[in-house]
C-alpha cells in the first residue's frame, strides 16, 4: 500500500491479471449512469483496490484516452486524462521520484484539481500587479546625466 511498493495481492505477481478490471468497469457503469441521470459525481480510488499493475494497465487500455490530456505541476507531477467515455477521467498523482501517490477514476464534468481554487483567484490581482510593477521597473530607461 505504501506508494505502490508492496504487492497489491500477497503472493500474486504484478503481471497477473485477476479480472478486477472487469469488476471496476461494471461498477463504473452504475456511476456513469448516476452521473448521466442526476449529475452525481463520484470517484473510485484504484490504489485502495487489490489490483495488480496488469489489472490497472488493462483497465486503462479498455477505457482508452479521450480528447483531453493534461499535466499539473503541483508538489510533483499529476496527469489528468479524459477517457474515451465522456465524463470519466483517469487521474494519476505522482510523489517523490515519480512514485504513484494516488490513482483515481473520477466521474465528473471536470476533475476538481483542474479548477482554479477561489482562494488562488483572490490572490491573482495582487500577483499580476506585482508582475506589472516589476516589468515597469525593468523597462524604465535610466536617465543620463
Amino acid at each position: 500500500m505504501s506508494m505502490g511498493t508492496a504487492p497489491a495481492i500477497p503472493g500474486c505477481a504484478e503481471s497477473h491479471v485477476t479480472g478486477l478490471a472487469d469488476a471496476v468497469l461494471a461498477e463504473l457503469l452504475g456511476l456513469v449512469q448516476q452521473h448521466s441521470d442526476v449529475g452525481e459525481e463520484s470517484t473510485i480510488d484504484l490504489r485502495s483496490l487489490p489490483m495488480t499493475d496488469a489489472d490497472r494497465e488493462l483497465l486503462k487500455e479498455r477505457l482508452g484516452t479521450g480528447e483531453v490530456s493534461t499535466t499539473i505541476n503541483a508538489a510533483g507531477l499529476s496527469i489528468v486524462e479524459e477517457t474515451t467515455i465522456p465524463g470519466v477521467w483517469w487521474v494519476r498523482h505522482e510523489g517523490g521520484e515519480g512514485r504513484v501517490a494516488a490513482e483515481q477514476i473520477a466521474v465528473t464534468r471536470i476533475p476538481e484539481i483542474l479548477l482554479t481554487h477561489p482562494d488562488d483567484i483572490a490572490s491573482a490581482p495582487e500577483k499580476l500587479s506585482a508582475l506589472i510593477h516589476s516589468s515597469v521597473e525593468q523597462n524604465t530607461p535610466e536617465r543620463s546625466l
Partner: protein
Amino acid sequence: MNRKETLGEMMNRRGVSRRAFLKYASYLASMMALPPAASSALAQGLTHARRQAVIWLSFQECTGCTESLTRSNNPTLEDLIFDFISLDYHHTLQAASGDAAEEARHQSMVDNKGKYIVIVDGSVPVKDGGIYSTIAGHANVDMLHETVQDAFAVIAVGTCATFGGLPYAKPNPTGAVPISDLVKDKPLINIPGCPPVPEAMTGTIAHVLGFG
C-alpha cells in the same frame, strides 16, 4: 511564521497552490483508506488549520524513526507535512543545542499551552529513578511528564515507544516501559513499526490537523 496565519495563507504566500493541498489530501485519503470523497474535506481542513507546534522527544531509541520520516531527498508531495508543522524541539534536527535547545522546548510549551503535540520515539527507563537515560541532566521519565502535562495529544512512534522495543527485552536492565505505561490522561496515538511507515506518521499528523 505568524502562528495566527492559516496553512492555506502561509502556503499561498510561499507560492504553493490549493491544487497541491488537494493532491496531498488525495494521496493521504488513499493511503489511509479513507473514502475518496474525504479528500476534499481533508484539503479544506488543512487549508484552514493553524501551523501545529510539535515537540519531538527521543528517549531510548536508535533514530531510525526520524530517519524514516526524513529520508526523502527532495521537496516533494510527501514532504509537505514539514511545512504544516513547527518542529520546535528535536534533538537530531534542531540547530540549537544545550541550554538553548531546552529553552526552545519550554518556550514552545508556554506559547502553545494546551495546543501542542508531543511526538515520542524510544522507550523510557524507569528503574532506579530513570537514571539510565538523561537529557540536559533530567531523566527521560521526568522530561516526558513535564512536557506532556500541557500537551494537546501525544503520538508514540516506533516499536520502542509503543511496546517497549529492544530496550524492553529481557532482562530489561533499565526498566524500560512504553509511553502508554506513563501517559494516562492525554489522547495517545500509537504508531508501531521499526521504523514506522513514514506515510503512517505524516498521515496521522495531517489527520489531526485536518479533522482535529
